């Protein structure tokens, strides 16, 4: 491997991946984020290159890929960039989630050195209903409802965009559908949910959730980069537990509330605080089991979750 580009590198996940790749001396690591250089220097490990790039601007993306990426001979692109605040919607957010993914895929195809494109997707792309499987395989139906929030629709569209590129381009594309990552500043809705003193949950429902630690997410991304296999992979976590257990292990109080009240209550909370948890985004995961079948990732990538979350998660 001659080098790796990491978008969204200033998140804890991106920084941890950069540190891991540096530790394994996997060639130059080019980190990309929107933060100023000084801020990025605080979170990124030593020895990595950093580029401040606004991925919502096509010109910036082109300059990145045909500039530093080509110069460094990057062989793998790890696309982690996503908006961290679920309350934000609109064209700019869509451009970051979907258009930037599409453009980076297209341009990566034009760079001879790039052989692998790893796209981080989410368990939220799966259609989670009572008539669907409790354990999602990679071929499970996707959430294509037009009534789904933009946060979900964007993720599905980016996921499908990456999938559509498989076999049609030169670059091998790996889509990693990750379980909910429990970490701050990565756009984790579960983190935000468990950060509240009281976690409101639908009365009478206690679904199974799957939680991914940063260490396991890094291991999965690294496996995808080094293996270079294309395809869709579910990336499960080492913690599969009922929602109520996650709340208890986080040291929070669970307050069961009738489902119809949860939407307004969490909207009110988002309006008066800096919490971005959205009930409409997570409604199905708070009602029905949402566990990933990670057998394919184990067979092809050799990835198996081995790092459980340390409960209570720090800061949660």
């Amino acid at each position: 491997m001659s080098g790796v580009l990491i978008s969204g590198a200033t998140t804890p996940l991106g920084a941890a991946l950069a540190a891991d790749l540096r530790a394994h001396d996997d060639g130059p690591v080019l980190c990309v984020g929107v933060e100023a250089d000084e801020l990025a220097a605080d979170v990124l490990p030593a020895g990595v290159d950093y580029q401040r790039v606004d991925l919502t601007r096509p010109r910036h993306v082109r300059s990145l890929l045909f500039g530093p990426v080509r110069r460094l001979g990057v062989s793998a692109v790890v696309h982690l960039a996503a908006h961290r605040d679920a309350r934000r919607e609109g064209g700019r957010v869509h451009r970051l989630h979907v258009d930037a993914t599409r453009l980076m895929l297209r341009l990566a195809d034009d760079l001879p050195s790039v052989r692998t494109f790893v796209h981080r997707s989410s368990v939220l792309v799966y259609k989670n209903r009572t008539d669907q499987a409790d354990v999602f395989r990679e071929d499970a139906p996707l959430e294509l409802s037009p009534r789904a929030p933009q946060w979900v629709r964007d993720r599905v569209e980016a996921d499908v965009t990456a999938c559509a590129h498989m076999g049609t381009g030169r670059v091998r594309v790996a889509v990693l559908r990750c379980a909910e990552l429990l970490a701050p500043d990565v756009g984790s809705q579960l983190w935000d949910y468990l950060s509240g003193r009281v976690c409101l949950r639908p009365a009478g429902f206690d679904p199974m959730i799957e939680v991914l630690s940063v260490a396991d997410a890094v291991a999965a991304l690294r496996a995808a980069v080094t293996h270079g296999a294309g395809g869709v992979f579910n990336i499960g976590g080492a913690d599969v537990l009922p929602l109520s257990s996650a709340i208890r292990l986080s040291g929070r109080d669970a307050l069961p509330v009738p489902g119809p009240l949860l939407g307004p209550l969490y909207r009110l909370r988002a309006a008066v605080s800096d919490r971005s948890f959205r009930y409409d985004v997570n409604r199905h995961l708070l009602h029905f089991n949402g566990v990933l079948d990670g057998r394919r990732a184990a067979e092809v990538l050799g990835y198996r979750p081995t790092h459980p979350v340390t409960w209570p998660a720090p800061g949660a």
Partner: protein
Amino acid sequence: MTDARASLLSRVRRRLTGGAGPWLPKLPDGRAVARWVVPVDELARVDAMPLRDLGHGYDAYGMSRGGLAFGLALSHVLYHHWFRVSSHGIGHLPTTGPVVVVANHSGTLPLDGLMICADILRRSPVPRVPRAVVDYFVGRMPVVNTVFTRAGAIGGSRANFHDLLDHGEVIVVFPEGTAGIGKGWDKRYELQRWTHGHAELALRHGATIVPLAVIGAEEQLPQLGRLAWLHAFGAPFLPIPASPLPLPVHLHLWYGPPIRVAERWSPDDAHDPEVVAQVAAQSRAAVHQLIHQGLRARTGVFA
């Protein structure tokens, strides 16, 4: 925030929560409840049952030993005292490998399914967990869905079937579906439309089909009518039972000789509609025969 205000808030919170615990009283552990009502030997079987524990005491579907124990406790009175379930031929249940138990469905409320699971939990030759397949709308019912999944029930999607049979589990299905449970008094002990899905899945996974007849459930809760326009939680109709409580009928469960699909067909035959239909017809005929055997053997509805 001043210290005094923080202290006041802390006191209020402690008063509300009763300490550091949750805002609402914690529900008792399933095992603790079960110890009060379930005999020790039945409870001991729960520990011997296979559970694909993913680290927190639950499998991917939400089943737990506490939930199984709670299921035993919930069904104890109904099984031993109300319906006085008599089990015949449970030795036919294989001790290993994937199994599909197929049964006739009746009784307005799915108590027949509960009693089948209670029977397998208590009396199978080797402790095995019966995974009852429930209709989609059950998953939308608060509390019920959680109690059911903790005790091993699963939603009826094909992917769930595949996964559990892949792991060699025991699945309990009613090929008649809601047509069976909602049929009128005049059609009692008549098998309704018999779906083929169980046969196809048994073929694909080389699972053994165990036919089972439930005798007595038809009389447990006769139906006066139904509200076809009322779809609470997505249920196809709301039944109007003739009695506020199920009648204390004597329930008989008749297990038939297993149909060892893998000995005669290969997994590829699951793609052949004729073979699938043939296997489904065989399971239907076996259940039909067991129903008549059971009806002939019983001495009375309540006896």
